[in-house]
């Protein structure tokens, strides 16, 4: 067969593409269970990280069962969960956050003490922020900056927590330093905190013992 002819070229392309497609589909199918398991465990690790319970891949599931005592939603669409956790005998509320960073989605979990105001801990994740810059939000040093901050100000008004350029400050609300070189991601975290926490305000304003 003429190697430079149209028939050969078309045939070659079709066969190559089909083979590659089958190969990729097969790989994806085989690896899928392991990947979803990783994702589920990763989510548990992130939730646990928000209440400062360090977990690795093998201990995450057991620790999650131990720590998280109940899960419920504050809205009808079941988009905004609250995880109730018991850490050292104290009740913590873990709220889910979702927003956008520079390249794609970012998310996080914010744990509040049972006053439903003071931050106990936080953890953040992202789909594709720049490694070494925006991606730093997923590392413990950034999350640790939130501990002790309050999401309501002194007049009991919901203010969220602002992310500011290191060295700057804002009046009348709590703030933490953003990531140097990750300005757009930091702004994304700021917007995510405000937008996601706002949904929880009715729940946060309710009495501690009614759900």
């Amino acid at each position, binding site marked *: 067969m003429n190697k430079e002819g149209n028939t050969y*070229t078309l045939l070659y392309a079709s066969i*190559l593409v089909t083979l*590659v497609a089958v190969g990729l589909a097969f790989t994806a199918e085989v690896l899928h269970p392991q*990947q979803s398991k*990783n994702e589920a465990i990763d989510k548990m690790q992130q939730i646990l990280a928000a209440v400062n319970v360090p977990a690795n891949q093998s201990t995450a599931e057991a620790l999650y069962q131990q720590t998280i005592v109940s899960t419920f939603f504050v809205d009808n669409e079941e988009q905004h969960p609250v995880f109730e956790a018991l850490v050292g005998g104290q009740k913590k509320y873990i709220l889910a956050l979702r927003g956008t960073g520079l390249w794609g989605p970012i998310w996080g979990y914010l744990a509040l003490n049972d006053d439903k105001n003071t931050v106990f801990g936080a953890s953040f994740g992202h*789909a594709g922020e720049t*490694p070494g810059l925006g991606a730093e939000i997923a590392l413990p040093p950034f999350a640790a900056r939130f501990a002790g901050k309050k999401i309501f100000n002194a007049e009991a008004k919901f203010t969220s927590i602002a992310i500011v350029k290191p060295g700057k400050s804002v009046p009348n609300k709590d703030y933490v330093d953003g990531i*140097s*070189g990750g300005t757009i991601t930091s702004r994304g975290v700021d917007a995510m905190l405000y937008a996601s926490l706002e949904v929880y305000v009715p729940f946060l304003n309710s009495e501690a013992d009614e759900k």
Partner: protein
Amino acid sequence: MKNKELFLNPFSKNNPITVQMLGICSALAVTSKLEPALVMGISVTVVVALSNVIISLLRNTIPTRIRIIVQLVVVAAVVTVVNEILKAYAYDVSKQLSVFIGLIITNCIVMGRLEVFALANKPLPSLIDGLGNGLSYAIILLVTGFVRELLGSGSLLGYQVVPNKLYEWGYENNGLMILPPMALIVVACIIWLQKARQK
């Protein structure tokens, strides 16, 4: 060319980054810390070596007119498989590198080696050529990542190496080092050193 020469050439007079100016974009993007630079270097090496071998095996069957498309399909497939395997067995690494793994497809070094070398050579030399080019790319990434993380964050691989004492005396991390322009300048310095030495 002898195999040893094939392997060592990219490290000096034919370095993909400092001489051929390929793969600069990813060199800028992942070198603000040492760890992503390391993983990126390894991933690119694996991808170049593997796709070099595959293209070399297919080289006598590929129609000339669609050879670039064939190369792209092979590279894209290899990268996707690497990404899927990382997701399944090295989830943390895959989470950290996220978009950059996919972007290996667009790394000029990969296509460059396929077009220049693998299409005209046997599988074994192609494998060696791929490894040589991948590793020499990795070395430049590591040097850049080392300088940028050390001066920009005072740490290496995430561990603090600049003693606290120094900070108390007024030393400060150079924030500019974390930003992309400094990668360009660090790479330029490496090129400068190399050119000056070779003259």
